[in-house]
């Protein structure tokens, strides 16, 4: 090793960096996962990836390469914030980061035309390029014939066929990365790029046509099955009916399918609690374990089956390609309140959690449309609100079959709560689009991908991932909050002449009593006041806190009764209804507010969001409580 040589050309410590660039939905993230062993979200609609993600791949020669996955785009002329990420990374404009050493252009082999146009645009950057012809399996199945050697010669870049979703489907790409990276180091001159004019775009298009004429010997069949299915699913009447039926089934199933496993978990938790009760001597430790941790964390964990059912539906809808159809079907209807059809996708993700929902709004091009979508996303009932709904429904709604036994009353109430969230979101959007976010809607120009059967393994992995996130959260954040709440609810202890359960005299009791006057007009007792405070950190904690409070308030015998039973005894129906109304609008958790801050670059919009939602929540709870008290 010579010192001089390394002084002249300092050795690179960082591994070479390659970026995956291509049209939306061509399989970049699937390739990324195959190359790096990651588990980033893959789904069958354009606009899944909205951020830059990095990972490491090891090439067959043992070289470590940093791989960057990017949002899909049709051109470097970014139209929306997600596409800006792609442009900035590719051009080396991203903060504190040089441009990538090489680009892997990913193209959907079943639809080369649009993909190759981007390749031609990217070639002008002068960076080393590899073209990955992805989805070769689908292309073969449709009888599409591509002459890879000629394509490579005409484009002047190496071309490798890949099948991102098959094991070993990226071996050729890894070999090519080795070759390209070995020769890529010298030519890292800064990119020059200027926005192509429509004349340039037509010229690129001509170039693509002449390449296609030589390289595609058979364009294959169109996706006939997809077209046949779409004659029904995109039918003006049946299509919409089907969409509403799917949504109804989804909310109904969250209730119905999850009931049995929830009872099992409930039984198991009760068993553990009994065991602790009989094994440990009475005292603070036993109380911490049973009243704090088991009652608190347990009352959250029990909702795992419901969360999984909800995610099952969302994962299947995403994987089949139906989401883009829903956006199509709803474009006109959502246009009625001024929203873009595409807003349906972020809004549907918000049923799982508002955080990815708010981020998915990046794919909406126009700033006013995007802000309107972000502002209403938290009104979609997120999965963390499910526990609150379920608990109150179990406590107050009798389990009677309705509609001729087709659905249960609890499921119907659940659907009504979801519908209340959706309708209020649409009304807020209507008001926003007529006041602060005035202006015509952006044009709709969206590719409808061919349907794909979801891979059961992917769905299972997705659910497993969700379960892990949920249980980790229950084991960390919620666990810690519950211990804190148990201490607050247990100390200081009751005075000698206490007439009420000890919790009345504790710190939590004091906080609750201090807040009580504020919440009395909407019918909330002090126990709810205590639960709402940590509920802002994580909504489902509210249920856990109620679990602890009522466990500590109960006398020895009543302790075994379920939380739902305890609530049914101690709350009036108007109070329960008011709490449900509160939670339809409940001010979102801290995670949502901070992601809104990040996406809007400031505290203004999160502050507005918090204010309007708390006002709506208070107002709705007030009206519901008063009306219900008057009627009942």
């Amino acid at each position, binding site marked *: 090793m010579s010192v001089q040589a390394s002084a002249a050309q300092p050795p690179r410590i960082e591994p070479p960096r390659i970026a995956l660039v291509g049209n939306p939905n061509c399989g970049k993230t699937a390739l990324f996962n195959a190359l790096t062993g990651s588990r980033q979200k893959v789904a069958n609609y354009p606009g899944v990836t909205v951020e830059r993600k990095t990972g490491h791949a090891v090439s067959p020669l043992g070289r470590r390469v940093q791989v960057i996955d990017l949002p899909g785009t049709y051109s470097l002329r970014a139209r929306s914030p997600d596409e800006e990420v792609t442009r900035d990374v590719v051009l080396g404009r991203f903060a504190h980061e040089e441009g990538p050493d090489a680009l892997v252009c990913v193209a959907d082999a079943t639809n080369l*035309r649009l993909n190759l146009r981007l390749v031609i645009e990217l070639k002008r950057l002068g960076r080393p390029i590899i073209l990955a012809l992805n989805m070769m399996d689908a292309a073969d199945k449709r009888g599409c014939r591509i002459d890879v050697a000629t394509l490579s010669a005409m484009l002047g870049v190496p071309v490798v066929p890949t099948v991102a979703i098959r094991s070993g489907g990226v071996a050729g790409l890894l070999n090519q990365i080795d070759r390209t990276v070995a020769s890529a180091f010298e030519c890292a001159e800064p990119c020059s790029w200027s926005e192509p004019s429509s004349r340039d775009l037509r010229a690129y298009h001509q170039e693509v046509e002449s390449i296609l004429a030589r390289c595609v010997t058979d364009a294959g069949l169109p996706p006939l099955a997809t077209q046949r299915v779409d004659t029904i699913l995109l039918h003006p009447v049946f299509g919409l009916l089907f969409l509403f039926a799917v949504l109804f089934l989804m909310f109904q199933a969250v209730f119905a399918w999850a009931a049995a496993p929830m009872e099992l978990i409930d039984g198991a938790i009760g068993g553990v609690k009994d065991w602790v009760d009989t094994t440990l001597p009475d005292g603070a430790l036993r109380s911490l374990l049973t009243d704090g941790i088991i009652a608190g964390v347990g009352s959250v964990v029990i909702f795992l089956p419901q969360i999984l059912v909800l995610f099952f539906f969302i994962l299947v809808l995403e994987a089949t390609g139906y989401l883009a159809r829903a956006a199509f079907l709803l474009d006109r209807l959502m246009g009625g309140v001024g929203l873009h059809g595409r807003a349906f996708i972020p809004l549907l993700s918000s049923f799982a959690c508002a955080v990815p929902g708010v981020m998915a709004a990046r794919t909406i091009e126009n700033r006013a449309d995007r802000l309107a979508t972000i502002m209403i996303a938290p009104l979609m009932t997120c999965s963390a609100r499910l526990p609150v709904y379920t608990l109150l429904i179990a406590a107050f709604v009798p389990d009677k079959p309705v509609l001729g036994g087709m659905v249960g009353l609890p499921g119907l109430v659940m659907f009504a709560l979801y519908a209340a969230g959706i309708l209020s979101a649409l009304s807020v959007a209507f008001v926003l689009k007529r006041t602060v976010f005035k202006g015509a809607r952006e044009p709709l120009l969206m590719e409808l991908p061919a349907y794909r059967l979801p891979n059961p393994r992917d769905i299972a992995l997705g659910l497993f991932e969700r379960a892990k996130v949920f249980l980790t959260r229950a084991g960390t954040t919620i666990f810690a909050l519950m211990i804190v709440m148990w201490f607050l609810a247990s100390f200081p202890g009751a005075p000698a002449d206490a007439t009420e359960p000890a919790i009345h005299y504790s710190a939590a009791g004091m906080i609750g009593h201090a807040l009580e006057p504020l919440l009395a007009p909407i019918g909330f007792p002090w126990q709810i006041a205590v639960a709402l405070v940590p509920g802002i950190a994580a909504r489902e904690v509210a249920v856990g806190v109620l679990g602890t409070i009522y466990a500590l308030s109960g006398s020895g015998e009543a302790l075994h009764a379920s939380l739902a039973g305890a609530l049914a005894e101690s709350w009036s129906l108007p109070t329960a209804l008011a709490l449900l109304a509160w939670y339809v609008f409940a001010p979102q958790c801290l995670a949502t507010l901070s992601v809104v801050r990040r996406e809007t670059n400031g505290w203004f919009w999160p502050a507005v969001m918090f204010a309007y939602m708390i006002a709506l929540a208070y107002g709705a709870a007030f009206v519901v409580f008063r009306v219900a008290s008057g009627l009942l």
Partner: protein
Amino acid sequence: MTLPSPSDGDLRLHQLRKGQPATVTGVDESVVVTTLPAGELERRMIEMGLVEGSRVVILHEGFPGRDPIAIRVNEHTLALRRAEARAVRVAPLA
């Protein structure tokens, strides 16, 4: 190739019947009211494959007002609104 006869000399994509194949003969955004800066809609359409010579056919129509429409453009399917489809000049294939 036959040139469009004078009667349908200025046929637009949104006027096509469902299932009637056509080729794109031009993109002219001047007939569309849009929030986008001048020239932007035309470029987006070209990027999405709506460019001279492309084969198009309307596959599905939405609700209400048979809007938006899903069209097959060469090898892919595209959803767009009738309002913007006005910008695409087409010649029906017999």
